[in-house]
């Protein structure tokens, strides 16, 4: 069945974007700019890759040359090892072939970028993953005026509406305090890159000890080394005795929650921080004690506002609820289409990012 995979993974029915794409077009390797002979977040090895951010569906190994933001680069290097990586500052303009490119804050994780590509006066912006609301950690999202906006829509349905971050953090604090009062650890599942540090910043002043799983601690170390201020954490090692940290908050990747690794914390209360926790069905299926609705992606209102702010006439959807969101935009008067990419949004399982 592997042979069918290529067609089957594509988004569902709905018009595909078929018009000749002057600035960017999809090839089997990824989103390609013929004028500059480069790709953005390609999914197969290429000569030159512009990378929006370090999540594994966007920053993949095997390219000959990489270009990423200076603040996003350390994590990408950490994840991909010895690669030929050049960096660029936000808003700095660089010529690649006949294209002018610049990177702009996407507010998704530290160093994450939207990539602006201008060819002969025609401006396209690739959103990567983005979140318009401030999270206290990532460089805040900035709308970039363009003719064509290529946008993700992971949470592109009107059932997804985030509450202010402070409210969600307060909920997590209450849960943590409740567990601590009963001498229980609070085991909170969150992505190792971005979400975990966002939680740290949001909860770090609570006074209680925060323990970290190795995957999260490694990313924290990289960020601290580049000068991002993060609250103190206690890395969990094979020698860690949970009894010396009663009532601690333990940050771990979602996949570690039900694992033998988690067993050392005994009767811990488990929580998950994800946009998908907005749905009761997902909350219950994931079998964590608590679900906290916290996403590093735009919600319905965020997507609509961000798209409006670009002033774009044409919007192309990459991943998420592309079908309904395209139709919605078309009804709002946009020239809307879908481009099939291999990028993923926040997943319900939490193993991709």
């Amino acid at each position, binding site marked *: 069945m592997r042979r069918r995979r290529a067609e089957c993974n594509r988004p569902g029915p709905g018009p595909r974007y078929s018009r000749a794409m002057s600035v960017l077009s999809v090839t089997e390797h990824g989103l390609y700019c013929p004028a500059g002979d480069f790709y953005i977040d390609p999914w197969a090895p290429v000569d030159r890759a512009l990378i929006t951010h370090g999540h594994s569906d966007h920053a993949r190994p095997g390219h000959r040359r990489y270009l990423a933001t200076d603040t996003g680069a350390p994590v990408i290097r950490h994840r991909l090892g010895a690669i030929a990586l050049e960096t660029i500052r936000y808003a700095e303009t660089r010529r690649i072939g006949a294209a002018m490119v610049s990177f702009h804050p996407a507010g998704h994780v530290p160093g994450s970028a939207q990539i602006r590509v201008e060819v002969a006066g025609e401006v396209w912006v690739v959103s990567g993953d983005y979140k318009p609301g401030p999270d206290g950690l990532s460089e805040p999202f900035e709308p970039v005026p363009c003719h064509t906006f290529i946008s993700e829509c992971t949470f592109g*349905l*009107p059932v*997804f*509406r985030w509450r202010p971050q402070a409210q969600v953090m307060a909920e997590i604090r209450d849960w943590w305090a409740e567990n601590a009062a009963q001498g229980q650890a609070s085991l909170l599942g969150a992505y190792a890159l971005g979400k975990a540090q966002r939680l740290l910043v949001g909860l770090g002043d609570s006074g209680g000890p925060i323990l970290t799983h190795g995957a999260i601690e490694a990313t924290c170390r990289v960020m601290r080394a580049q000068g991002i201020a993060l609250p103190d954490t206690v890395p969990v090692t094979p020698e860690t005795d949970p009894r010396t940290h009663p009532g601690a908050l333990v940050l771990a990747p979602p996949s570690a929650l039900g694992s033998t690794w988690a067993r050392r914390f005994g009767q811990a209360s488990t929580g998950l921080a994800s946009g998908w926790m907005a749905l*009761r069905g997902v909350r219950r299926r994931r079998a964590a004690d608590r679900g906290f609705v916290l996403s590093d992606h735009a919600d319905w209102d965020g997507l609509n506002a961000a798209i409006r702010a670009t002033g774009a006439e044409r919007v192309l959807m990459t991943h998420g609820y592309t079908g309904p969101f395209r139709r919605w935009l078309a009804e709002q008067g946009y020239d809307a289409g879908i481009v099939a990419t291999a990028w993923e949004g926040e997943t319900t399982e939490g193993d991709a990012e």
Partner: protein
Amino acid sequence: MKRFAALYTALDRTTRTTAKVEALAAYLAEAPEPDRLWTVALLSGRRPRRAVTATRLREWAAERAGLPLWLFEDCYPVVGDLAETIALVLPPPAQDSDLSLSARMTDILAMAAMDEPARKAAILDAWDSLGGTERFLYTKLLTGGFRVGVSQTLMTRALARATGQDEAELAHRLMGDWTPATTSWQTLIEAPDPAAALSRPYPFYLAYQIEGPPEALGVPADWIAEYKWDGIRGQLIARGGVHFLWSRGEDLITDRFPELAVARDFLPAGTVLDGEILAWKDGRPLPFAALQTRIGRKTVSKRLLAETPAAFVAYDLLEDGGTDIRARPLAERRARVEEIIAGVPPGGPLRLSPVLPFDDWQDLARTRGAARAAEAEGVMLKRADAPYLAGRKKGDWWKWKLDPLTVDAVMIYAQAGHGRRATLYTDFTFAVRDGEALVPVTKAYSGLTDAEFREITAWVRKNTLQRFGPVRQVAPELVFEIAFEGIRASPRHKSGLALRFPRMARWRRDKPAAEANTLDDLKALLEAPDRDAGSEGQRGA
């Protein structure tokens, strides 16, 4: 409503029964009495009828949210629940109100008499004054679909803790056809009520399916065997010159079976029989499908009475001469049932469920094997010295049903589940081989673990051939063993067959699609004795 929403959240958040009972007991001790009464009503399945159609709710919610209807419809399968979808798409509430649960319920009940514009205005106003969980619950209550993972037994336990009353006494009080509109907390729970006591049934004792070979139960002499009938479990009550018939769903169905009025004439005063209601003609039971023609009718025509007469087949006695004898051993209670039925004219609608004699387990296995010929589903095993317990308790009563029939079939369509399983593909259509072709024969959506559903969901995503709305046609590769209880010819189905109670028995990872069963294999089962009957519900032990 806020207090009720907090209770719901607490109950929904935990799977631990102790935590659920604790949360519920606290609520039942502290909430205002009308709210307690409503909570007890809702948790015992006494939901008001749906106040408005789902179609109208969708339209009004989409309109209020400023969304095209198609977009609302696209959200629904993702969320998997109509009330939750509505709660999520509506804008945040403009007003803050804390009308109590009982006030909200009274409003909902009043909607039945309203014209549509008034009903719409009332609902929009409520939506606009409720946030988050409260809005979700309110909408659930509107649609008549409110459910929470608390069994009646747990609820009764919590109620006992909150009121300091005896659990069994409370279980007794809660039965019957009361609603919050016809009673009060004081009357139902606190005050003695002799009139209501006359009709009150006992909680049914429910059996478990036996898990291994019956040898594990020990000595055959300790056990009493009977047929496991395929009818409606019922309690026939004769007290004070009147009679009552209750079904296991705790519905009073006296009027639907007028032939059982003979109970007034022939049962001693203060008799409560436990047994099975069956369609019965010419000395033998008719298939369940025949009984179904009687269930839905409030008034029964003479013709129907003649065509499909019903009988009450008794197998236990709970009250004898006005005394609760549930604590007496079964053997003693059975002996009394036999005496009582012996005093009833033979051949009539009051019958005895015979004891099936057996010397050893082999012997009983043979009787069970022939159960189908007696229109039974298998046999029941009841410990001779056991009291009559309330609810489903393991140990004394076992059902030993006939083995289900099975077929190995190929999955051809998959659809996402609902509620808890909204993001998983759990509803499948299965086909059997017919030459080179695959003919769909049944749908099934239960029987696998969450882990298996997750694995299949990942597979479905990668092996989709075509999409039809929420349904995906998948590569015909996965084979599942489908268990079912019966099969009948059905011209409505493409295969010409319909399976009864199909479910996935296991995933046959070892079998390629080419080795799945054929349509001819299934047709051969049609020749076998008729096992067909109707729907589940209040049936069986």
